[in-house]
């Protein structure tokens, strides 16, 4: 029969690895003799502390049955654990025995990511707007000024804007909601009238109208796939650019009786919450961390999270599913049940919590364990952040690990009564957030390891969010 219990299972502890002879393992676990300390005397104290911590976090119950899933998981943990317990990258450590955030190296990596690419990177041709967004956002998270890039951001997006509205990946490419979202966010992060005015809001509004579907959701492109990314990206554009919620006269969904971008949208999101409690790309698919964030982000734009999340989702079931995404003992998140930990879910799952906690009470998630994973296992030796040890850095994982770290370090509050200079009119809920302070409980980072505050709905700097919305609230017409 399958499960075996007992605190000495399984045997991937570093403590045991440090004593290669199996007889010694026996001797060690029998415990008590002085000689065990001789063997580990060369191991620094911080590493012993980490080893002790991960021994506590290791699942006690491990099934005997081996399948592809459990084998890949075991192999992966063997690769990751040395980074969590020791310091193979030889990074300088903070007072908690964890690697410092390698700010300088990461900033340099991101500067490079914004530079030129050789012909071998042709696969990026349809995804350049993403490279800009990830890199710019990550730089601001590190507290780096991006003023020097402002003009070049605008220059890059001018040819991407399609004459019929929306943005493609480059000149002559069809408009698509993914590059549109990345373009709008990048331009908003860059900020300034030149960036804002480069956006043709009227044609974008018409384009979004063409994406609205009779079932309430949004397609990504004309003739393209309909999924929950579309719903989130469309809401981000409508809100940040303060566009009318009324569907344009030429929107095909009008022929099905729809008049408003929000028509049946909440119900459509509802249908994406599946039997697992998580949220899927479209109704019927498997629950997935990235789609969960899109769904929650979309609802948090539609109204105050307390109202919209509780109206359209079974929040306790969602919380349960989100909690289970935290891998033990790794501390980072996976995106689906029985999948591997991956640094990008530091954001996709980690950033769900601010939205969920605004709807349902705070103090639900283990922030410290996530920070451990990001600092110890998700920083590449030469700069940039990664999925897991052994993988290469890229702008995507750099952006989303840092966003996850920010989610860990700050407490965000949704304040219905907030009165500010911004946040009047439609889709104004996301302008009611503020940072109530730092998260201190059990923290394992120091000042030097802090990233900047990130707006929990838009995943860009707070001030860039309000400056952009304010600009378009003050502007008459399109």
């Amino acid at each position, binding site marked *: 029969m*399958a*499960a075996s219990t007992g605190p000495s299972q399984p045997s991937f502890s570093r403590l045991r690895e440090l004593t290669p002879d199996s007889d010694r393992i026996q001797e060690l676990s029998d415990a008590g003799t002085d000689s065990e300390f001789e063997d580990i005397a060369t191991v620094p104290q911080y590493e012993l502390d980490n080893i002790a911590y991960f021994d506590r*976090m290791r*699942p*006690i119950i491990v*099934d*005997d049955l081996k*399948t*592809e*899933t459990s084998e890949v998981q075991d192999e992966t943990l063997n690769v990751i654990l040395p980074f969590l317990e020791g310091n193979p990258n030889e990074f300088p450590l903070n007072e908690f025995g964890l690697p410092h955030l390698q700010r300088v190296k990461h900033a340099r990596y991101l500067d490079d990511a*914004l530079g*030129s*690419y050789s*012909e071998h990177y*042709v*696969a*990026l*041709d*349809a*995804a*350049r707007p993403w*490279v*800009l967004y990830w890199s710019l956002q990550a730089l601001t998270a590190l507290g780096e000024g991006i003023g020097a*890039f402002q*003009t*070049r*951001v605008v*220059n*890059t997006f*001018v040819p991407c804007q399609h004459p019929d509205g929306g943005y*493609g*990946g480059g*000149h*002559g*490419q*069809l408009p*698509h909601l993914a590059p549109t979202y990345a373009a709008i966010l990048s331009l908003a992060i860059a900020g300034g009238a030149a960036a804002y005015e480069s956006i043709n809001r009227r044609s974008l509004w018409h384009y979004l109208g063409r994406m609205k579907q009779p079932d309430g959701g949004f397609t990504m*492109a004309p*003739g*393209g*796939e309909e999924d929950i990314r579309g719903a989130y990206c469309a809401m981000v554009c409508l809100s940040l650019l303060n566009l009318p919620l009324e569907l344009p006269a030429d929107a095909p969904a009008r022929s099905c009786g729809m008049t408003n971008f929000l028509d049946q949208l909440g119900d459509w999101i509802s249908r994406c919450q*599946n*039997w697992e*409690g998580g949220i899927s*790309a479209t109704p*019927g*698919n*498997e629950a997935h961390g990235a789609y969960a964030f899109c769904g929650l982000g979309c609802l948090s734009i539609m109204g105050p999270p307390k109202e919209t999340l509780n109206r359209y989702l079974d929040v306790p079931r969602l919380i349960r599913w989100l*909690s*289970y995404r935290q891998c*033990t003992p790794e501390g980072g998140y996976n995106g689906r*049940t*029985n*999948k591997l930990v991956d640094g990008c879910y530091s954001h996709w799952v980690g950033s769900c919590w601010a939205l969920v906690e605004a709807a349902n*009470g705070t*103090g*639900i*998630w*283990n922030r410290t*364990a996530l920070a451990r994973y990001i600092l110890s296992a998700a920083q590449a030796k030469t700069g940039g952040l990664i999925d897991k040890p052994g993988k290469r850095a890229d702008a995507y994982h750099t952006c989303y690990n840092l966003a996850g770290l920010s989610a860990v370090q700050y407490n965000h509050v949704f304040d219905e009564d907030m009165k500010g200079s911004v946040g009047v009119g439609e889709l104004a809920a996301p302008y009611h957030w503020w940072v109530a302070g730092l998260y201190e409980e059990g923290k394992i980072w120091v000042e030097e390891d802090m990233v900047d505050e990130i707006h929990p709905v838009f995943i860009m700097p707070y001030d860039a969010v309000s400056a952009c919305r304010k600009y378009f609230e003050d502007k008459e017409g399109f």
Partner: protein
Amino acid sequence: MPRFYHDDPAWSDVTPIPQLESGQVLAGISYTAEYSEAMSYLRAVMAANEYSTRVLDLTEHIISLNPAHYTVWLYRAQTLSALNRNLREEIKWLNPTALKHLKNYQIWHHRQTIIDRLGSCDGEQEFVEQMLEKDAKNYHVWSYRQWVVRRFGLFGDEGERKWCEGMMERDVRNNSVWNHRFFVVFGGLKGEVEEGLLKRELEYAQDAVRKAPQNECPWNYIRGVLRQAKKPMSTVKEFAKEFADLEKPDEVRSTHALDLLADIYEEEKKNDEAKTALDLLANKYDPIRAKYWEYRARSLDSAAVEA
């Protein structure tokens, strides 16, 4: 051999549209001359709304250079439709391309467009199987399979369910298979879940739990099935207790059984027992989620106060 168009008589009537220069940019790519020229011809034919055989050749060429190019795929689909092309031929061409680029969104959407127009899913299940041989949890492949089930009315289909069981034999921890089973069994259901169906699905999941009690999937499945059937969680109380008995707190064989028991005790208004289960999870069996288990315990208190 790179392929060029400027000296090809078949293309002499087309004036290519080169990529717009817009001053200094970020993340620019130094394209090969071949890619750069092919894209310039694509921009030109798209601007002229040209749908022709040579456009199909051009899109095939660009796809071979950059399969992640959604524009080319979408325009190819439009061209196929405008030319009323033999879509079976298209699928034959598509298969090796798909097998080469597993994580590509565009290929799957393209396939969906084509199969939708063909109106027949002959061979699709076999093809999906081939893809899953390479990557048994690929999200796009599974989503596509779910689209096939919906489009071609395979809800409740016994063959589809048996196929899931085969996949499950391979790896009972593959959550994508569990999701597909749930989708096939319950996705098309209108009205109540019959007793027989409920029993069959619960037994299937319970057998899976016995193979590996710490596997999260079948426990979630049990919760999902009960919810679908509008049955209380206490329906499986005795089963859960096989794997976690509060009387024997050192012999727990599944954290998921403890979690389920906590919910069952809450359902039965036995808050002390629920708290014992949550406490075991927080302090012994699943400490990484301690905050979550403590939140659940707090929720019990507030529910009691409200009552």
